């Protein structure tokens, strides 16, 4: 589906009937999805879907920094880590603090936001590859701190991570238990799915609105030409910090939800490869295009899981035994897919209008 048709289905003003029917179908499908998944392929797939939605959050957050403002960030997963640890430390037996999630999530977002500014402030004058190197270092610093802050005072519990993290609770309703309602069993992951879906809608709306606003235009101006942006009165320092802060806050919220869903976190979840994965989602989907980024995040989250469940049976059927580990195949196919992408759709699966025109012009210009 191209972006245009997608938009006509969602444009409630110019084509109300079609749009509302379209939205209703999408709504019902999304609402039924976890029940169908749990019923037919197992609750594991609901968990996989939830993690995929978390990665959509991350990709959308990174898209603000990379896609809108044009600041290449290779340490983005650090903000996810910060959000996750803030939640874990404030809602687990580790410090014996058990705050409710609606207090911790904003705290996590705020702390991640602070880290975003901490990263942004010293890198204001850097661009492109130089910025990428510094952000990469920042991501590693955060991870190494998490790994080693178990001495002399045990804050993060080091490589063992934090366990027994509280799930979300609203009153007596815990997101870990299964409830039965109207003959349907709503397990923990299914409830998280609905919550994530709700937050996802809010996040998408915020992103769309930011993009078409005074702030979004200022970010695009910085991406296009920083000197001209400043000469036009845009405070590039504040706008870049804002981009880092906004992106980081999204990461922080996603991290908090990750913590609550998993019940256990350790520094291992926040390695460099994860940052690269999120960046790949943004690039693969189409930098700067919100729908493209969502598509990229979903594809790259689901593909490895599909492989995990199919590689072994397929090999068993073909060769009678397992020749190549799923993990190896996964990286092989991932690399192959990226190479193909760069050859055939360099602007991403759903490129932003701008980026598409940019690349087209570059290719046309290259021809004599």
């Amino acid at each position, binding site marked *: 589906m191209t972006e245009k048709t997608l938009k006509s289905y969602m444009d409630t003003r110019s084509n109300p009937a079609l749009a509302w029917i379209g939205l209703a179908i999408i709504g019902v499908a999304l609402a039924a999805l976890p029940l169908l998944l749990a019923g037919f392929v197992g609750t594991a797939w609901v968990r996989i879907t939830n993690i995929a939605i978390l990665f959509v959050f991350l990709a959308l957050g990174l898209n603000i920094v990379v896609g809108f403002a044009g600041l290449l960030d290779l340490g983005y997963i650090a903000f996810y880590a910060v959000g996750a640890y803030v939640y874990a430390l404030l809602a687990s037996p580790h410090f014996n603090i058990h705050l409710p999630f609606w207090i911790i999530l904003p705290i996590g977002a705020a702390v991640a936001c602070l880290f975003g500014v901490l990263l942004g402030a010293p890198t204001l004058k850097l661009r492109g590859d130089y910025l990428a190197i510094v952000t990469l270092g920042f991501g590693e610093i955060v991870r190494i701190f998490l790994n080693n802050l178990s001495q002399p005072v045990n804050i993060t519990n080091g490589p063992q991570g934090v366990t027994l993290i509280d799930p979300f609770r609203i009153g007596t309703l815990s997101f870990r238990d299964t409830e039965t309602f109207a003959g349907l069993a709503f397990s923990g992951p299914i409830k998280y799915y609905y919550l994530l879906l709700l937050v996802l809608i809010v996040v998408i709306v*915020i992103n769309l*609105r*930011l993009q078409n*606003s*005074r*702030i*979004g*235009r*200022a970010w*695009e*101006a910085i991406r*296009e*030409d920083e*000197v*001209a*942006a*400043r*000469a*036009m*009165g*845009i*405070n*590039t320092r504040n706008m870049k910090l*804002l981009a880092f802060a*906004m992106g980081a806050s999204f990461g922080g919220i996603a991290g908090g939800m990750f913590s609550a869903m998993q019940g256990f976190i350790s520094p291992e979840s926040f390695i460099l490869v994860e940052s690269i994965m999120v960046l790949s989602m943004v690039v693969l989907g189409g930098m700067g295009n919100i729908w493209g980024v969502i598509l990229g995040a979903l594809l790259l989250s689901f593909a490895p899981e599909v492989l995990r469940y199919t590689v072994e049976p397929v090999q068993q059927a073909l060769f009678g035994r397992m020749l190549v580990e799923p993990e190896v195949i996964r990286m092989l196919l991932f690399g192959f897919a990226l190479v193909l992408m760069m050859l055939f759709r360099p602007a991403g699966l759903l490129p932003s209008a*701008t*980026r598409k*025109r*940019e690349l087209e*012009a570059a290719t046309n210009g290259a021809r004599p």
Partner: protein
Amino acid sequence: MEAPLNAAPAAADPSSRALLEGTAISKRFGGVQALADVSFSIRPGEIYGLIGPNGAGKTSLFNVLTGIYDADGGSFVFDGRPLAGLKPNDVAARGIARTFQNIRLFANLSALENVMIGRHVRTRAGVFGAMLRNASTRDEERAIEKRAFHLLDYVGVSRRANDLAKHLPYGDQRRLEIARALATDPKLLALDEPAAGMNATETASLSRLLRDIRKDGTTILLIEHDMKLVMSLCDRVLVLDYGKKIAEGPAADVQKDPAVIAAYLGGDVALNLKGA
């Protein structure tokens, strides 16, 4: 009108209500003295030319004025207040907008978006306004778009509003840059070679546009190599050579100045001036 040719830094006359007063501006790049004690003053409502051979320091003066470079010495007083130490965005907020010698549009954004970005400094909506999209933000957005369309129309590129800036013809790009600068509601519009690369027809229509802008109340500072344009358009002219001021005064007086003619080695400019 007083025309202090070859004058030493003009003593700031307290009674003059200059819009922009530059006093003893100096800028050095390594061993090159790009600007040496340049003093000048621009009166409200005039079109003030800044000319000189290549490398004379014209663009350096622009960059120092607009805060892209810090001056090594000297000071600017704009609209009654000093500009010292301001960042480019603060200078724009104070009311000086500029264009660039090598066009610096936001190439991959539409013409309209380019001008809308120019409104940034005169509008308020922040992150929360953008996220909540409340009534005042929506009103502001509408006002921004309306003003941007109006400005595109004013400079004559409204029919290309939705085209990418980089796909506009060269002359239209120059005009779009002017529209973007005007969107910041400047008191002083600083144009760096707006007629460069234009043919005679385009230059003539640019000249009309600049007169309109002045008539509508914006003072213009103009760097230009097209002497015909400078002499027909500018009220007063500042001539730089090797970073030094060699003349300042009404265009007609400056073009007779022997120091100015000598600066433009070879005399083709002198011929041009006679032609004008």
